[in-house]
C-alpha cells in the first residue's frame, strides 16, 4: 500500500558542499567516545570502570530510570578515561580500540518464529534499543509502553543531509530484518516514508506501509510525516527509528553482532572534497575531516549532524550516536559593516527585505555561523507558519513553553512535536530566538510534571 504525502510549507536550505556519491573507508579511529549527553534525559549508571575491557556490543552503562535500557560500546577495547563534570555528571567515556575487534555474540534470531518479547529483550540487552525513540517527548522509547505505530523516514530533506538511497544501498536484508522485528512490537503499522522520485531500498520491503513524500524540508522529518499520517493524541505513543540505524538493528538480529558501522556523509562548504565515509559510531571526527577536508588551523565549525539540529564538536571530538552527517562550515565571528541594512545577496532569507535569495532559488549558499543579528523579543508574526507544515500554531506553542503553562502546551499539541520540528522556524526567526531549546525545555518540563 502506498500513499502520497505532499508537503507545501517549508524551506529547502541549499548549501554548498553536498557529498559526492563515493564512499571510502575512514581511517580507523584509535579512540571511541560515548557521550551520555547524546541520549537526552538518560541518567547513566556505569557498568564498567576505567581500565576494564569491553567487547563491541557489551554494555558500558544503563539508564538509571530504566535499567533495561543498556548502552553498549561500539568497539572492543579498554575504557581509558571517564570524564566527569559538575556534580560528577559523566561527560564522556573514552575507549581505546583493540587492533582486532571482538564482538559479543547475541546469537542470530529466527524472525519468523520470534515473538514480541524475545525481540524486545534482544534489542534491549544488545544496546539496539537506544535507536528506538518515542514521541511524545523525543526521548529513547519506554519499552513498557506499546506504541500505536512505528515511523521511519527514509527521505532526508535537511540541508546537506546524507542521501539515504545511497547510504542504505545493498542493505536490504538488514533493513527487512529490522522492520520485521519492529513490526512485532506494535499492534499498529510500520510507516516508512520514502522520497517520491527516489529509488529507495526501503520501498520494496514487506510488512510496512510505504508513503511517498515530496516537498521542501521538513518533509523528510519524521515529525512532519507523523502529523500527516496519524497524529499523536494525548496518551498515545509512537516510536521512530532513523533509517540508518535499522541497518545496525538488522545486522544484530541476523548475525548476533552489534556492528556500529555507519555510512557518514562529510559535507559543508569548508570541506574540499565532500564525500561519504564508512566509519563507526563514536569515532574521532579527526579521522575524516582533515584529508581533503579542512586545514588544521581553519576557522571552521565541525558539526556532528546537520546544520539545523547537529551538535558542535571540537576538532578532537567524535561522531555522536545518532548522526550520519558531519558538517563543516566556516565560523562567522566577524563584524559586517552596515550588515543590517545593505542589500544581501549571499545569504538565505524568506523575506525580500533587500535580501535577494528569492531571485535565485536554486543557488547553493555558503553560510557561516554568524547569527546575522541579535536576540530580540518575538515581534514578527506569520513568518513561522510559512515554513512549518504541522497543524500546530508554532509561535503560540513556543510562548506557552516559555511561560510554562502545561495545560496550554498540552492543548496546543506539544505531544506531537520534537525540537527538530522547530529547526526551520529557528533558522528564519527574525528575533533569533532559540526555538529548539525552548521546545526541548518545554518537553522536559512535561516529562517531569506529567510523565
Amino acid at each position, binding site marked *: 500500500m502506498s500513499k502520497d504525502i505532499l508537503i507545501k510549507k517549508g524551506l529547502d536550505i541549499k*548549501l554548498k558542499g553536498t557529498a559526492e556519491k563515493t564512499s571510502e573507508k575512514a581511517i580507523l579511529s584509535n579512540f571511541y567516545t560515548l557521550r551520555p549527553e547524546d541520549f537526552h534525559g538518560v541518567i547513566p549508571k556505569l557498568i564498567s570502570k576505567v581500565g576494564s575491557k569491553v567487547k563491541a556490543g557489551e554494555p558500558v552503562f544503563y539508564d538509571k530510570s530504566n535499567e533495561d535500557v543498556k548502552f553498549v560500546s561500539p568497539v572492543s577495547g579498554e575504557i581509558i578515561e571517564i570524564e566527569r563534570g559538575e556534580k560528577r555528571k559523566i561527560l564522556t567515556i573514552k575507549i581505546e580500540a583493540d587492533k582486532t575487534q571482538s564482538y559479543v555474540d547475541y546469537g542470530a534470531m529466527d524472525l519468523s518464529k520470534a515473538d514480541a518479547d524475545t525481540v524486545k529483550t534482544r534489542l534491549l540487552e544488545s544496546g539496539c534499543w537506544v535507536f528506538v525513540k518515542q514521541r511524545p517527548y523525543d526521548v529513547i522509547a519506554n519499552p513498557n509502553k506499546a506504541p500505536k505505530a512505528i515511523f521511519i523516514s527514509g527521505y532526508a530533506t535537511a*540541508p546537506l543531509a546524507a542521501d539515504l538511497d545511497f547510504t542504505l544501498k545493498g542493505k536490504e536484508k538488514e533493513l527487512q530484518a529490522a522492520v520485521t522485528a519492529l513490526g512485532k512490537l506494535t499492534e499498529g503499522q510500520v510507516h516508512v516514508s520514502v522520497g517520491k522520485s527516489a529509488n529507495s531500498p526501503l520501498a520494496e520491503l514487506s510488512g510496512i506501509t510505504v508513503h511517498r513524500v515530496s516537498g521542501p524540508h521538513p518533509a523528510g522529518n519524521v515529525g512532519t510525516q507523523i502529523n500527516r499520517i496519524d*497524529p499523536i*493524541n*494525548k496518551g498515545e505513543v509512537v516510536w521512530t527509528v532513523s533509517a540508518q540505524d535499522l541497518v545496525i538493528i538488522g545486522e544484530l538480529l541476523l548475525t548476533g553482532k552489534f556492528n556500529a558501522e555507519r555510512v557518514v556523509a562529510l559535507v559543508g562548504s569548508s570541506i574540499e572534497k565532500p564525500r561519504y565515509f564508512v566509519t563507526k559510531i563514536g569515532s574521532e571526527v579527526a579521522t575524516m575531516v582533515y584529508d581533503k577536508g579542512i586545514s588544521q588551523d581553519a576557522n571552521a*565549525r565541525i*558539526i556532528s549532524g546537520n*546544520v*539545523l539540529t*547537529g551538535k*558542535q564538536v571540537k576538532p578532537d571530538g567524535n561522531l555522536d550516536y545518532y548522526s550520519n552527517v558531519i*558538517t563543516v*562550515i566556516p565560523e*562567522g*565571528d*566577524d*563584524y*559586517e*559593516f*552596515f*550588515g*543590517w*541594512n545593505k542589500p544581501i545577496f549571499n545569504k*538565505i*532569507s524568506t*523575506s*525580500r*527585505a*533587500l*535580501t535577494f*535569495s528569492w531571485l535565485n532559488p536554486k543557488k547553493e549558499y555558503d*553560510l557561516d*555561523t*554568524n*547569527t*546575522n*543579528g*541579535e*536576540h*530580540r*523579543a518575538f*515581534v*514578527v*508574526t*506569520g513568518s513561522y*507558519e510559512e515554513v512549518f507544515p504541522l497543524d*500546530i*500554531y508554532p*509561535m*503560540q506553542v513556543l510562548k506557552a513553553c516559555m511561560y510554562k503553562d502545561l495545560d496550554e502546551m498540552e*492543548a496546543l499539541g506539544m505531544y506531537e512535536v520534537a525540537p527538530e520540528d522547530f529547526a526551520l522556524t*529557528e*533558522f*528564519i*526567526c*527574525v528575533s533569533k530566538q*532559540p*526555538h*529548539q*531549546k525552548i521546545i526541548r525545555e518545554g518537553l522536559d518540563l512535561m516529562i517531569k510534571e506529567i510523565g
Partner: protein
Amino acid sequence: MSLKSKLHNLKEKYKGTKMAPAFNALHTFLYLPNETTHGGTHIKAADDLKRTMNTVIMALVPCLIFGMFNAGYQHYIATGAPVDFLSWDAFYVGLIKVLPLVVVSYGVGLGIEFLFAVIKGHEVEEGYLVTGMLVPLIVPVDLPLWMLAVAVAFGVVIGKEVFGGTGMNILNPALTIRAFLFFAYPTWMSGDKVWVHGAVERANEIASGANLDAISGETILGSLAQGQQSAYSIADMFFGFIPGSVGETSTLLILLGGLFLIFTKIGSWRIMLSSVIGALVMGLIFNGVVDAGWIGEGSKFYGLMSTTFWHHLLIGGFAFGTVFMATDPVTASQTTKGKWIYGFLIGFISILIRVFNPAYPEGVMLAILLMNVFAPTIDHYVVQGNVKKRMKRLKAKIA
C-alpha cells in the same frame, strides 16, 4: 588600527558594565555583530529585527518627503500666494516645520529607550525606529514641539516600557502617542486650524486685532463632517495635495509603500486587504442608508454618510493607518485567520467612527487602538479552533 577593531576593543571594555547596552546599540548600528550561533541551528537566515524595521522606514520615507513638500504647498495656498508643489519654497517650509518633529520624536523616544535599556540591563530593541518615524507623520504640522516631546515620553513609557518593551506592548505606541496628544491637547489635534502651517498663528493675530485674512486649515473630513462639499478633486485626494497630518495625505505613496511592504513580506497583506474590504463594506452600508432615505440632508451625519463609499479610502488617515499602523505585528492579531478578522473590523469600525463622530471625524486611530485591545481575544478564539480540532481527534479515537 581599523575602526572595526577599535570598536571591538571598546565593546570588550564596556562588556558587563551599565553602559554596555547603550554602546552596543550604537555599535550594532554600524556593524552587524560578530555573534555566532550556540546550540540550536548553526546557521541563521539573513533577516534580523533591524532589517525588518528598516524596511518599514524605507516604505515611509516617500511619505515623509512628500509631507514636507505638501506642508509648504498647503501653507502657501492658504496664505494666498500659491507656489509650485515641487518648489524649493514649499520644501523649505516643510523642512523647517517637519524635520524638528522627526528630531524630537527620535531624540526623546530613543533617549528613553536607551535609558530603560541601561537601567534594566537589556539590549536596546529596535521597535522605536519605526514608531519614531510614524509619529511625525501622523501629527498636524504646527504641533508645538514640547507637546510632541511630552506625548512621546508618555507613549514610550506607558505604552511600551511598562509592558516590558518591544514585543510586549498591547497598544500601538505611535497611536498611543497620538491618542495622548488628541485627548490632552485637543485644540492642537483637531478642528479647522491646525492642519496647515500658519493657520493658528494667523487666527491669533486676527484675534488680537490684525487686519488679515483668516487661513483655513480645514481637512476634507472636517468639511464633510460639517455637511459642506469638499473643495478637492478625487485626483488631489489620491495624490495627496490636501491638508492633513504630515505624512498621511498621499494615498498614492502610501499605496506604493504598502505594496513594497507586501512584496518584502514585512507587512501583512491580509490585514491591509481585509481592512480595505471592511471600510468599503461599511461605506456601502452608509450609502445604502442614505439611498433608502433613512437619513435626510438635514442630519448632521448626512455629509459623511453620503460620501461615495470608496472615497473613504482616499481621505483622512485611513490609508496610512491601514498600511503602517494596523499591520504592526506586535499589536495586531498573530494568527492568519485572526488577521483577516482584525483587519476587517479595523476598516469597518474606522468608517463607523468617522461618520458618527462629527466632532472628531477621524476614526482610524481609535479603530486600530480598539482592535489592538481585541486582537488577543480574536487570536484566542482562532487558536481554540485548533485546540478543539485536536480534542475532537482524541474523542474520535476513544469512542
